Protein backbone atom coordinates (compact mmCIF):
# COMPACT_ATOMS: atom_id res chain seq x y z
CA UNK A 1 0.00 0.00 0.00
CA UNK A 2 2.83 2.42 0.93
CA UNK A 3 4.49 1.76 -2.41
CA UNK A 4 1.29 2.51 -4.30
CA UNK A 5 0.76 5.80 -2.51
CA UNK A 6 4.39 6.77 -3.07
CA UNK A 7 4.02 6.08 -6.80
CA UNK A 8 0.81 8.11 -6.82
CA UNK A 9 2.66 11.01 -5.15
CA UNK A 10 5.34 10.69 -7.83
CA UNK A 11 2.76 10.84 -10.62
CA UNK A 12 1.21 13.93 -9.03
CA UNK A 13 4.62 15.62 -8.87
CA UNK A 14 5.17 14.85 -12.56
CA UNK A 15 1.82 16.36 -13.48
CA UNK A 16 2.49 19.38 -11.29
CA UNK A 17 5.93 20.01 -12.80
CA UNK A 18 4.44 19.82 -16.30
CA UNK A 19 1.80 22.37 -15.32
CA UNK A 20 4.31 24.63 -13.53
CA UNK A 21 6.48 24.84 -16.62
CA UNK A 22 3.66 26.04 -18.89
CA UNK A 23 3.17 29.65 -19.89
CA UNK A 24 -0.41 29.99 -18.80
CA UNK A 25 -0.78 31.50 -15.33
CA UNK A 26 -3.84 29.47 -14.34
CA UNK A 27 -2.02 26.25 -15.21
CA UNK A 28 0.87 27.31 -12.99
CA UNK A 29 -1.52 27.90 -10.10
CA UNK A 30 -3.16 24.50 -10.62
CA UNK A 31 0.34 23.05 -10.71
CA UNK A 32 1.15 24.47 -7.27
CA UNK A 33 -2.12 23.06 -5.89
CA UNK A 34 -1.36 19.57 -7.20
CA UNK A 35 2.20 19.84 -5.92
CA UNK A 36 0.91 20.41 -2.40
CA UNK A 37 -1.42 17.39 -2.64
CA UNK A 38 1.55 15.25 -3.61
CA UNK A 39 3.54 16.27 -0.55
CA UNK A 40 0.56 15.72 1.75
CA UNK A 41 0.30 12.15 0.49
CA UNK A 42 4.02 11.76 1.07
CA UNK A 43 3.81 12.98 4.68
CA UNK A 44 1.01 10.49 5.34
CA UNK A 45 2.98 7.64 3.83
CA UNK A 46 6.09 8.59 5.76
CA UNK A 47 4.24 8.27 9.05
CA UNK A 48 3.15 4.76 8.04
CA UNK A 49 -0.34 4.01 6.75
CA UNK A 50 -2.94 2.35 8.95
CA UNK A 51 -0.90 0.36 11.43
CA UNK A 52 -3.44 0.05 14.24
CA UNK A 53 -6.72 1.46 15.46
CA UNK A 54 -7.87 5.05 15.59
CA UNK A 55 -5.87 7.13 18.06
CA UNK A 56 -7.46 9.21 20.85
CA UNK A 57 -10.86 7.45 20.74
CA UNK A 58 -10.10 4.65 23.14
CA UNK A 59 -7.41 3.12 25.32
CA UNK A 60 -7.96 -0.57 24.67
CA UNK A 61 -6.39 -1.24 21.28
CA UNK A 62 -3.04 -2.97 20.97
CA UNK A 63 -1.57 -0.53 18.48
CA UNK A 64 -2.49 2.92 17.33
CA UNK A 65 -1.98 4.72 14.05
CA UNK A 66 0.40 7.68 14.28
CA UNK A 67 -1.79 10.77 14.53
CA UNK A 68 0.96 13.33 14.07
CA UNK A 69 1.25 13.20 10.25
CA UNK A 70 -2.50 13.80 10.01
CA UNK A 71 -2.21 16.87 12.20
CA UNK A 72 0.66 18.09 10.04
CA UNK A 73 -1.29 17.53 6.83
CA UNK A 74 -4.33 19.33 8.22
CA UNK A 75 -2.21 22.39 8.94
CA UNK A 76 -0.46 22.18 5.58
CA UNK A 77 -3.78 21.87 3.72
CA UNK A 78 -5.11 25.02 5.35
CA UNK A 79 -1.96 26.92 4.47
CA UNK A 80 -1.91 25.73 0.85
CA UNK A 81 -5.61 26.61 0.58
CA UNK A 82 -4.90 30.17 1.70
CA UNK A 83 -1.91 30.52 -0.61
CA UNK A 84 -3.84 29.17 -3.61
CA UNK A 85 -6.74 31.54 -2.91
CA UNK A 86 -4.31 34.45 -2.72
CA UNK A 87 -2.58 33.42 -5.92
CA UNK A 88 -5.87 33.14 -7.80
CA UNK A 89 -6.86 36.66 -6.77
CA UNK A 90 -3.41 37.90 -7.70
CA UNK A 91 -3.68 36.27 -11.12
CA UNK A 92 -7.11 37.84 -11.66
CA UNK A 93 -5.86 41.32 -10.71
CA UNK A 94 -2.81 40.90 -12.93
CA UNK A 95 -5.02 39.87 -15.82
CA UNK A 96 -7.23 42.92 -15.25
CA UNK A 97 -4.23 45.27 -15.08
CA UNK A 98 -2.15 43.89 -17.92
CA UNK A 99 -4.74 42.11 -20.05
CA UNK A 100 -2.60 39.00 -20.24
CA UNK A 101 -2.20 35.71 -18.42
CA UNK A 102 0.76 34.61 -20.51
CA UNK A 103 3.92 34.51 -18.44
CA UNK A 104 6.08 35.24 -21.48
CA UNK A 105 4.52 38.66 -21.96
CA UNK A 106 4.65 39.42 -18.23
CA UNK A 107 8.37 38.92 -17.78
CA UNK A 108 11.21 41.35 -17.31
CA UNK A 109 11.59 45.08 -16.83
CA UNK A 110 10.22 47.40 -19.45
CA UNK A 111 13.07 49.92 -19.42
CA UNK A 112 16.08 47.70 -19.76
Amino acid at each position, binding site marked *: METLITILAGVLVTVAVYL*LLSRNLIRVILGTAILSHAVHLL*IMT*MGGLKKGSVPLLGEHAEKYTDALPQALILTAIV*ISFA*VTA*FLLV*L*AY*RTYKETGSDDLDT*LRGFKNE
Partner: protein
Amino acid sequence: MNNIVVMPMIIPLLTGIILIFLRSHVILQRVLGMLSIIAMTGVSIYILKRIQLDGILRIDFGGWLPPYGITFVADSFAMLLVLTTSIVTGILLIYAFSSIGKEHEKLFFYPFVFFLITGVNGSFLTGDLFNLFVCFEVMLLSSYVLITLGGRKIQLVESIKYVVINILSSWFFLLAIAYLYGAVGTLNMAHLSVRIAEVGQDPLLTVISLVFLLVFSLKSGLLLYYWLPGSYSAPPTAVTALFGALLTKVGIYAMFRVFTLIFYHDINVTHTIIGIMAVLTLVGGSIGALAYKDIRQIAVYNIVIAVGFILVGLAVSTEAAFQGSIYYLIHDMIIKALLFLLVGTMFYLTGTAKIEKMSGLIRNYPLLGWLFFITMISLTGIPPLSGFIGKLYIGQGTVETGSYILLVIGFMSSIIVLYSLLRIFLNCFWGETIISEEDEVPLKKGMLIPCVLFGILTITLGLGAEGLSTFVQDAAHTLMNPEVYIEAVLNSNQ
Protein backbone atom coordinates in the same frame (compact mmCIF):
# COMPACT_ATOMS: atom_id res chain seq x y z
CA MET B 1 5.89 30.60 34.71
CA ASN B 2 7.76 31.10 31.50
CA ASN B 3 4.70 32.38 29.67
CA ILE B 4 6.63 35.52 28.85
CA VAL B 5 8.52 33.61 26.14
CA VAL B 6 5.46 33.61 23.89
CA MET B 7 4.89 37.37 24.26
CA PRO B 8 7.10 38.48 21.31
CA MET B 9 4.77 36.46 19.07
CA ILE B 10 1.44 37.16 20.82
CA ILE B 11 1.83 40.95 21.08
CA PRO B 12 2.16 41.59 17.32
CA LEU B 13 -0.54 39.01 16.55
CA LEU B 14 -3.09 40.68 18.84
CA THR B 15 -2.04 44.14 17.66
CA GLY B 16 -2.56 43.08 14.07
CA ILE B 17 -6.02 41.70 14.81
CA ILE B 18 -7.07 44.80 16.75
CA LEU B 19 -5.77 47.13 14.03
CA ILE B 20 -7.97 45.41 11.42
CA PHE B 21 -11.02 46.75 13.23
CA LEU B 22 -9.59 50.26 13.35
CA ARG B 23 -9.37 50.55 9.60
CA SER B 24 -10.47 54.15 9.21
CA HIS B 25 -8.81 55.52 12.36
CA VAL B 26 -5.35 56.03 10.97
CA ILE B 27 -3.96 58.01 13.90
CA LEU B 28 -5.18 55.41 16.40
CA GLN B 29 -3.57 52.67 14.30
CA ARG B 30 -0.24 54.50 14.40
CA VAL B 31 -0.36 55.10 18.16
CA LEU B 32 -1.35 51.52 18.96
CA GLY B 33 1.30 50.21 16.59
CA MET B 34 4.07 52.19 18.26
CA LEU B 35 2.88 51.19 21.74
CA SER B 36 2.95 47.56 20.71
CA ILE B 37 6.47 47.89 19.35
CA ILE B 38 7.63 49.51 22.59
CA ALA B 39 6.03 46.67 24.58
CA MET B 40 7.74 44.09 22.35
CA THR B 41 11.11 45.77 22.78
CA GLY B 42 10.68 45.89 26.55
CA VAL B 43 9.68 42.23 26.76
CA SER B 44 12.59 41.18 24.54
CA ILE B 45 15.12 43.02 26.72
CA TYR B 46 13.59 41.46 29.84
CA ILE B 47 13.76 37.92 28.41
CA LEU B 48 17.32 38.49 27.21
CA LYS B 49 18.35 39.52 30.73
CA ARG B 50 16.56 36.54 32.28
CA ILE B 51 18.33 34.11 29.96
CA GLN B 52 21.65 35.32 31.36
CA LEU B 53 20.44 34.55 34.89
CA ASP B 54 18.32 31.41 34.48
CA GLY B 55 19.66 29.87 31.27
CA ILE B 56 17.58 29.08 28.20
CA LEU B 57 13.84 29.54 28.75
CA ARG B 58 11.10 27.48 27.20
CA ILE B 59 7.33 27.19 27.21
CA ASP B 60 5.45 23.96 26.47
CA PHE B 61 2.12 24.77 24.90
CA GLY B 62 -0.81 23.06 26.59
CA GLY B 63 1.52 21.51 29.15
CA TRP B 64 2.60 18.79 26.70
CA LEU B 65 6.18 18.13 27.60
CA PRO B 66 8.74 17.94 24.81
CA PRO B 67 9.27 16.03 22.60
CA TYR B 68 5.48 15.54 22.25
CA GLY B 69 4.13 19.07 22.35
CA ILE B 70 5.12 22.23 20.55
CA THR B 71 7.70 24.26 22.43
CA PHE B 72 8.98 27.78 22.16
CA VAL B 73 12.62 28.08 23.16
CA ALA B 74 14.27 31.41 23.89
CA ASP B 75 18.05 31.37 23.81
CA SER B 76 20.32 34.39 23.44
CA PHE B 77 20.69 34.01 19.66
CA ALA B 78 16.93 34.01 19.06
CA MET B 79 16.24 36.81 21.51
CA LEU B 80 18.96 39.09 20.13
CA LEU B 81 17.31 38.79 16.72
CA VAL B 82 13.81 39.28 18.17
CA LEU B 83 15.02 42.43 19.92
CA THR B 84 16.64 43.79 16.76
CA THR B 85 13.47 42.98 14.80
CA SER B 86 11.33 45.02 17.20
CA ILE B 87 13.64 48.03 17.10
CA VAL B 88 14.07 47.98 13.32
CA THR B 89 10.32 47.60 12.74
CA GLY B 90 9.58 50.46 15.12
CA ILE B 91 11.87 52.85 13.26
CA LEU B 92 10.56 51.66 9.88
CA LEU B 93 7.00 52.33 11.04
CA ILE B 94 8.00 55.95 11.77
CA TYR B 95 9.21 56.18 8.18
CA ALA B 96 5.99 54.60 6.93
CA PHE B 97 3.88 57.19 8.78
CA SER B 98 5.07 59.96 6.49
CA SER B 99 5.76 58.05 3.29
CA ILE B 100 3.36 55.17 2.76
CA GLY B 101 0.25 57.25 2.04
CA LYS B 102 -3.34 57.27 3.27
CA GLU B 103 -4.50 54.61 0.81
CA HIS B 104 -2.07 52.02 2.11
CA GLU B 105 -2.85 52.89 5.70
CA LYS B 106 -6.55 52.32 5.10
CA LEU B 107 -5.91 49.09 3.20
CA PHE B 108 -4.61 47.24 6.26
CA PHE B 109 -0.94 48.09 5.83
CA TYR B 110 -0.20 48.14 9.58
CA PRO B 111 -2.03 44.90 10.43
CA PHE B 112 -0.02 43.04 7.82
CA VAL B 113 3.25 44.50 9.08
CA PHE B 114 2.37 43.10 12.48
CA PHE B 115 1.39 39.71 11.06
CA LEU B 116 4.76 39.69 9.32
CA ILE B 117 6.48 40.35 12.65
CA THR B 118 4.40 37.56 14.22
CA GLY B 119 5.80 35.14 11.67
CA VAL B 120 9.36 36.45 12.00
CA ASN B 121 9.40 36.28 15.82
CA GLY B 122 7.68 32.90 15.77
CA SER B 123 10.35 31.52 13.46
CA PHE B 124 13.08 32.78 15.77
CA LEU B 125 11.53 31.32 18.91
CA THR B 126 10.08 27.99 17.88
CA GLY B 127 11.73 24.74 18.91
CA ASP B 128 9.79 22.54 16.52
CA LEU B 129 10.60 22.03 12.88
CA PHE B 130 7.00 21.88 11.63
CA ASN B 131 6.11 24.92 13.68
CA LEU B 132 9.02 26.66 11.96
CA PHE B 133 7.32 25.87 8.64
CA VAL B 134 4.03 27.32 9.90
CA CYS B 135 5.70 30.50 11.15
CA PHE B 136 7.53 30.84 7.81
CA GLU B 137 4.15 30.64 6.06
CA VAL B 138 2.61 33.27 8.35
CA MET B 139 5.50 35.54 7.49
CA LEU B 140 5.37 34.77 3.76
CA LEU B 141 1.61 35.24 3.40
CA SER B 142 1.88 38.69 4.99
CA SER B 143 4.81 39.48 2.74
CA TYR B 144 2.76 38.46 -0.32
CA VAL B 145 0.10 40.96 0.71
CA LEU B 146 2.60 43.71 1.50
CA ILE B 147 4.42 43.27 -1.80
CA THR B 148 1.19 43.54 -3.85
CA LEU B 149 -0.53 46.19 -1.74
CA GLY B 150 -1.12 49.21 -3.94
CA GLY B 151 -1.58 47.09 -7.04
CA ARG B 152 0.76 48.88 -9.45
CA LYS B 153 1.50 46.89 -12.58
CA ILE B 154 5.15 46.21 -11.71
CA GLN B 155 4.21 45.05 -8.21
CA LEU B 156 1.69 42.54 -9.57
CA VAL B 157 4.02 41.15 -12.21
CA GLU B 158 7.00 40.86 -9.84
CA SER B 159 4.94 39.39 -7.03
CA ILE B 160 3.82 36.44 -9.18
CA LYS B 161 7.44 35.35 -9.44
CA TYR B 162 7.99 35.94 -5.73
CA VAL B 163 4.89 33.99 -4.68
CA VAL B 164 5.50 31.02 -6.98
CA ILE B 165 9.16 30.65 -5.99
CA ASN B 166 8.20 30.76 -2.32
CA ILE B 167 5.44 28.18 -2.79
CA LEU B 168 8.00 25.94 -4.40
CA SER B 169 10.50 26.40 -1.57
CA SER B 170 7.76 25.76 1.02
CA TRP B 171 6.99 22.58 -0.86
CA PHE B 172 10.59 21.47 -0.53
CA PHE B 173 10.42 22.34 3.16
CA LEU B 174 7.42 20.01 3.63
CA LEU B 175 9.19 17.35 1.59
CA ALA B 176 12.26 17.54 3.82
CA ILE B 177 10.10 17.44 6.95
CA ALA B 178 8.28 14.36 5.62
CA TYR B 179 11.52 12.51 4.90
CA LEU B 180 13.04 13.48 8.23
CA TYR B 181 9.94 12.33 10.09
CA GLY B 182 10.02 9.07 8.17
CA ALA B 183 13.70 8.61 9.02
CA VAL B 184 13.85 9.48 12.73
CA GLY B 185 10.22 9.85 13.81
CA THR B 186 10.30 13.19 15.60
CA LEU B 187 10.16 16.89 14.73
CA ASN B 188 11.23 18.56 17.96
CA MET B 189 14.60 20.10 17.11
CA ALA B 190 16.36 19.10 20.32
CA HIS B 191 14.94 15.58 20.15
CA LEU B 192 15.97 15.35 16.48
CA SER B 193 19.47 16.28 17.49
CA VAL B 194 19.58 13.56 20.15
CA ARG B 195 18.20 10.88 17.84
CA ILE B 196 20.54 11.75 15.00
CA ALA B 197 23.49 11.73 17.39
CA GLU B 198 22.39 8.25 18.50
CA VAL B 199 21.98 6.64 15.09
CA GLY B 200 24.76 8.66 13.48
CA GLN B 201 24.32 10.94 10.47
CA ASP B 202 24.32 8.42 7.64
CA PRO B 203 24.34 9.50 3.96
CA LEU B 204 20.52 9.37 3.85
CA LEU B 205 20.25 11.94 6.63
CA THR B 206 22.92 14.05 4.96
CA VAL B 207 20.83 14.11 1.78
CA ILE B 208 17.81 15.20 3.81
CA SER B 209 19.95 17.93 5.35
CA LEU B 210 20.84 19.10 1.85
CA VAL B 211 17.12 19.43 1.03
CA PHE B 212 16.85 21.69 4.09
CA LEU B 213 19.86 23.61 2.81
CA LEU B 214 18.08 24.09 -0.52
CA VAL B 215 14.96 25.38 1.24
CA PHE B 216 16.74 27.85 3.46
CA SER B 217 19.02 29.08 0.71
CA LEU B 218 15.96 29.86 -1.41
CA LYS B 219 14.48 31.81 1.50
CA SER B 220 17.65 33.61 2.49
CA GLY B 221 19.02 34.22 -1.00
CA LEU B 222 22.14 32.10 -0.58
CA LEU B 223 23.22 31.42 -4.17
CA LEU B 224 19.55 30.99 -5.20
CA TYR B 225 18.93 34.74 -5.14
CA TYR B 226 17.69 35.27 -8.70
CA TRP B 227 14.16 36.08 -7.50
CA LEU B 228 15.40 38.70 -5.05
CA PRO B 229 16.36 41.77 -7.11
CA GLY B 230 13.07 41.95 -9.02
CA SER B 231 10.68 41.48 -6.15
CA TYR B 232 12.57 43.69 -3.70
CA SER B 233 12.57 46.70 -6.01
CA ALA B 234 8.82 46.71 -6.72
CA PRO B 235 7.04 47.64 -3.42
CA PRO B 236 7.16 51.03 -1.61
CA THR B 237 10.33 52.01 0.28
CA ALA B 238 9.13 51.17 3.79
CA VAL B 239 8.10 47.67 2.67
CA THR B 240 11.34 47.04 0.77
CA ALA B 241 13.34 48.13 3.81
CA LEU B 242 11.31 45.78 6.02
CA PHE B 243 11.89 42.87 3.63
CA GLY B 244 15.56 43.67 3.17
CA ALA B 245 16.12 43.94 6.90
CA LEU B 246 14.10 40.93 8.10
CA LEU B 247 13.04 38.29 5.57
CA THR B 248 16.39 37.01 4.35
CA LYS B 249 17.65 37.03 7.95
CA VAL B 250 14.98 34.53 9.00
CA GLY B 251 16.28 32.11 6.38
CA ILE B 252 19.82 32.64 7.68
CA TYR B 253 18.68 32.06 11.26
CA ALA B 254 16.96 28.80 10.28
CA MET B 255 20.11 27.65 8.50
CA PHE B 256 22.25 28.37 11.59
CA ARG B 257 19.79 26.57 13.84
CA VAL B 258 19.47 23.47 11.68
CA PHE B 259 23.15 23.10 10.84
CA THR B 260 24.49 23.75 14.34
CA LEU B 261 21.85 21.87 16.32
CA ILE B 262 20.71 18.97 14.14
CA PHE B 263 23.02 18.23 11.22
CA TYR B 264 26.46 18.98 12.63
CA HIS B 265 28.00 15.51 12.33
CA ASP B 266 28.97 15.45 8.70
CA ILE B 267 30.67 18.83 8.47
CA ASN B 268 32.89 17.75 5.56
CA VAL B 269 29.89 17.53 3.24
CA THR B 270 27.34 20.04 4.49
CA HIS B 271 29.57 22.84 5.67
CA THR B 272 31.83 22.58 2.65
CA ILE B 273 28.80 22.99 0.41
CA ILE B 274 27.65 25.97 2.46
CA GLY B 275 31.15 27.45 2.10
CA ILE B 276 31.13 27.01 -1.69
CA MET B 277 27.65 28.50 -1.92
CA ALA B 278 28.71 31.43 0.26
CA VAL B 279 31.68 32.15 -2.02
CA LEU B 280 29.53 31.97 -5.16
CA THR B 281 26.96 34.25 -3.51
CA LEU B 282 29.67 36.77 -2.64
CA VAL B 283 30.99 36.73 -6.20
CA GLY B 284 27.54 36.87 -7.81
CA GLY B 285 26.36 39.63 -5.48
CA SER B 286 29.51 41.64 -6.19
CA ILE B 287 29.02 41.33 -9.94
CA GLY B 288 25.41 42.47 -9.55
CA ALA B 289 26.37 45.41 -7.35
CA LEU B 290 28.90 46.57 -9.94
CA ALA B 291 26.78 45.94 -13.02
CA TYR B 292 23.73 48.08 -12.33
CA LYS B 293 23.26 51.83 -12.52
CA ASP B 294 19.94 51.71 -10.73
CA ILE B 295 20.46 52.60 -7.05
CA ARG B 296 17.73 50.20 -5.94
CA GLN B 297 19.36 47.28 -7.74
CA ILE B 298 22.75 48.15 -6.24
CA ALA B 299 21.18 48.15 -2.77
CA VAL B 300 19.46 44.81 -3.40
CA TYR B 301 22.71 43.17 -4.51
CA ASN B 302 24.27 44.46 -1.29
CA ILE B 303 21.80 42.23 0.58
CA VAL B 304 23.07 39.28 -1.43
CA ILE B 305 26.69 40.05 -0.55
CA ALA B 306 25.82 40.29 3.15
CA VAL B 307 24.03 36.90 3.06
CA GLY B 308 27.15 35.32 1.59
CA PHE B 309 29.36 36.98 4.19
CA ILE B 310 27.28 35.92 7.20
CA LEU B 311 27.25 32.31 5.99
CA VAL B 312 31.03 32.28 5.75
CA GLY B 313 30.74 32.25 9.56
CA LEU B 314 28.57 29.12 9.44
CA ALA B 315 30.85 27.45 6.93
CA VAL B 316 33.90 27.68 9.18
CA SER B 317 31.95 26.91 12.38
CA THR B 318 34.18 28.12 15.17
CA GLU B 319 33.01 30.02 18.21
CA ALA B 320 34.67 33.23 17.05
CA ALA B 321 33.07 32.93 13.61
CA PHE B 322 29.64 32.38 15.18
CA GLN B 323 30.13 35.49 17.29
CA GLY B 324 31.06 37.38 14.16
CA SER B 325 28.01 36.13 12.30
CA ILE B 326 25.69 37.12 15.13
CA TYR B 327 27.20 40.61 15.37
CA TYR B 328 27.02 40.92 11.60
CA LEU B 329 23.38 39.72 11.47
CA ILE B 330 22.35 42.38 13.97
CA HIS B 331 24.41 45.01 12.18
CA ASP B 332 23.03 44.00 8.82
CA MET B 333 19.40 44.20 9.92
CA ILE B 334 19.97 47.80 10.99
CA ILE B 335 22.20 48.96 8.17
CA LYS B 336 20.17 47.37 5.34
CA ALA B 337 17.05 49.07 6.66
CA LEU B 338 18.97 52.37 6.65
CA LEU B 339 20.41 51.78 3.17
CA PHE B 340 16.96 51.07 1.71
CA LEU B 341 15.44 54.08 3.44
CA LEU B 342 18.17 56.33 2.04
CA VAL B 343 17.83 54.89 -1.46
CA GLY B 344 14.05 55.20 -1.29
CA THR B 345 14.31 58.77 -0.04
CA MET B 346 16.70 59.66 -2.88
CA PHE B 347 14.19 58.19 -5.33
CA TYR B 348 11.40 60.20 -3.71
CA LEU B 349 13.41 63.43 -3.87
CA THR B 350 14.69 63.16 -7.44
CA GLY B 351 12.07 60.99 -9.09
CA THR B 352 14.72 58.78 -10.67
CA ALA B 353 16.74 55.75 -9.63
CA LYS B 354 19.49 56.12 -12.24
CA ILE B 355 22.80 57.29 -10.81
CA GLU B 356 23.71 59.30 -13.90
CA LYS B 357 20.60 61.45 -13.58
CA MET B 358 21.44 62.63 -10.06
CA SER B 359 24.20 64.98 -8.99
CA GLY B 360 25.24 67.23 -6.14
CA LEU B 361 22.51 66.18 -3.76
CA ILE B 362 24.71 66.91 -0.76
CA ARG B 363 24.35 70.65 -1.46
CA ASN B 364 20.55 70.31 -1.36
CA TYR B 365 20.26 67.79 1.45
CA PRO B 366 23.49 67.80 3.50
CA LEU B 367 22.29 65.57 6.35
CA LEU B 368 21.08 62.90 3.91
CA GLY B 369 24.48 62.92 2.23
CA TRP B 370 26.36 62.45 5.48
CA LEU B 371 24.02 59.66 6.53
CA PHE B 372 24.75 57.91 3.26
CA PHE B 373 28.46 58.34 3.97
CA ILE B 374 28.04 56.74 7.42
CA THR B 375 26.07 53.86 5.89
CA MET B 376 28.78 53.32 3.33
CA ILE B 377 31.66 53.09 5.77
CA SER B 378 29.60 51.05 8.21
CA LEU B 379 28.76 48.49 5.50
CA THR B 380 32.40 48.36 4.50
CA GLY B 381 33.33 47.60 8.09
CA ILE B 382 35.43 50.57 9.08
CA PRO B 383 35.80 50.96 12.86
CA PRO B 384 34.22 52.27 15.04
CA LEU B 385 30.99 51.56 13.18
CA SER B 386 28.94 48.43 13.66
CA GLY B 387 30.13 46.45 10.63
CA PHE B 388 33.69 46.22 11.92
CA ILE B 389 33.33 43.87 14.88
CA GLY B 390 31.40 41.25 12.91
CA LYS B 391 33.93 41.24 10.09
CA LEU B 392 36.77 41.02 12.60
CA TYR B 393 35.39 37.91 14.30
CA ILE B 394 34.42 36.16 11.05
CA GLY B 395 37.92 36.90 9.78
CA GLN B 396 39.40 35.47 12.97
CA GLY B 397 37.32 32.31 12.53
CA THR B 398 38.50 31.77 8.95
CA VAL B 399 42.13 32.24 9.99
CA GLU B 400 41.73 29.77 12.88
CA THR B 401 40.52 27.03 10.55
CA GLY B 402 42.85 28.00 7.72
CA SER B 403 40.05 28.70 5.24
CA TYR B 404 42.01 31.36 3.41
CA ILE B 405 39.83 31.30 0.27
CA LEU B 406 36.79 32.25 2.33
CA LEU B 407 38.84 34.93 4.06
CA VAL B 408 40.11 36.50 0.85
CA ILE B 409 36.77 36.40 -0.99
CA GLY B 410 34.93 37.67 2.08
CA PHE B 411 37.14 40.68 2.49
CA MET B 412 37.38 41.34 -1.25
CA SER B 413 33.61 41.64 -1.19
CA SER B 414 33.94 44.45 1.38
CA ILE B 415 35.95 46.40 -1.14
CA ILE B 416 33.30 45.79 -3.80
CA VAL B 417 30.64 46.98 -1.36
CA LEU B 418 32.69 50.11 -0.76
CA TYR B 419 33.16 50.68 -4.48
CA SER B 420 29.52 50.12 -5.40
CA LEU B 421 28.31 52.56 -2.74
CA LEU B 422 31.12 55.02 -3.41
CA ARG B 423 29.88 55.13 -6.98
CA ILE B 424 26.44 56.20 -5.75
CA PHE B 425 28.02 58.68 -3.35
CA LEU B 426 30.33 60.30 -5.92
CA ASN B 427 27.73 60.43 -8.69
CA CYS B 428 24.67 61.42 -6.73
CA PHE B 429 25.90 63.45 -3.79
CA TRP B 430 29.06 65.09 -5.15
CA GLY B 431 29.43 66.89 -8.42
CA GLU B 432 27.58 69.86 -9.74
CA THR B 433 24.25 70.61 -8.14
CA ILE B 434 21.57 70.23 -10.79
CA ILE B 435 18.52 70.84 -8.63
CA SER B 436 18.04 74.59 -8.12
CA GLU B 437 16.70 75.80 -4.80
CA GLU B 438 13.26 76.55 -6.25
CA ASP B 439 12.84 73.05 -7.70
CA GLU B 440 14.02 71.35 -4.55
CA VAL B 441 11.52 68.80 -3.23
CA PRO B 442 11.25 69.46 0.51
CA LEU B 443 12.61 66.58 2.56
CA LYS B 444 9.96 65.57 5.09
CA LYS B 445 11.05 65.46 8.74
CA GLY B 446 9.28 62.12 9.11
CA MET B 447 11.58 60.64 6.47
CA LEU B 448 14.78 62.09 7.87
CA ILE B 449 14.23 61.21 11.54
CA PRO B 450 14.15 57.41 11.04
CA CYS B 451 17.34 57.61 8.97
CA VAL B 452 19.03 59.61 11.73
CA LEU B 453 17.83 57.08 14.32
CA PHE B 454 19.31 54.20 12.30
CA GLY B 455 22.52 56.22 11.92
CA ILE B 456 22.75 56.69 15.69
CA LEU B 457 22.00 52.99 16.15
CA THR B 458 24.85 51.86 13.89
CA ILE B 459 27.30 54.16 15.69
CA THR B 460 26.18 53.03 19.17
CA LEU B 461 26.28 49.38 18.12
CA GLY B 462 29.84 49.95 16.92
CA LEU B 463 31.03 51.84 19.99
CA GLY B 464 28.97 49.84 22.48
CA ALA B 465 29.73 46.37 21.14
CA GLU B 466 31.26 45.66 24.55
CA GLY B 467 27.85 45.94 26.20
CA LEU B 468 26.40 43.38 23.82
CA SER B 469 29.32 40.99 24.08
CA THR B 470 28.01 38.92 27.03
CA PHE B 471 24.82 38.13 25.11
CA VAL B 472 26.63 37.39 21.86
CA GLN B 473 29.17 35.15 23.62
CA ASP B 474 26.36 33.22 25.27
CA ALA B 475 24.56 32.86 21.92
CA ALA B 476 27.71 31.64 20.17
CA HIS B 477 28.43 29.26 23.05
CA THR B 478 24.97 27.69 22.64
CA LEU B 479 25.45 27.35 18.89
CA MET B 480 28.84 25.75 19.41
CA ASN B 481 27.61 23.33 22.10
CA PRO B 482 24.24 21.90 21.05
CA GLU B 483 23.98 19.92 24.31
CA VAL B 484 23.28 23.18 26.19
CA TYR B 485 20.19 23.71 24.05
CA ILE B 486 19.14 20.06 24.21
CA GLU B 487 19.52 19.95 27.98
CA ALA B 488 17.34 23.05 28.36
CA VAL B 489 14.59 21.70 26.09
CA LEU B 490 14.40 18.05 27.11
CA ASN B 491 14.93 18.62 30.82
CA SER B 492 11.36 18.15 32.07
CA ASN B 493 11.58 19.54 35.60
CA GLN B 494 11.96 23.17 34.61
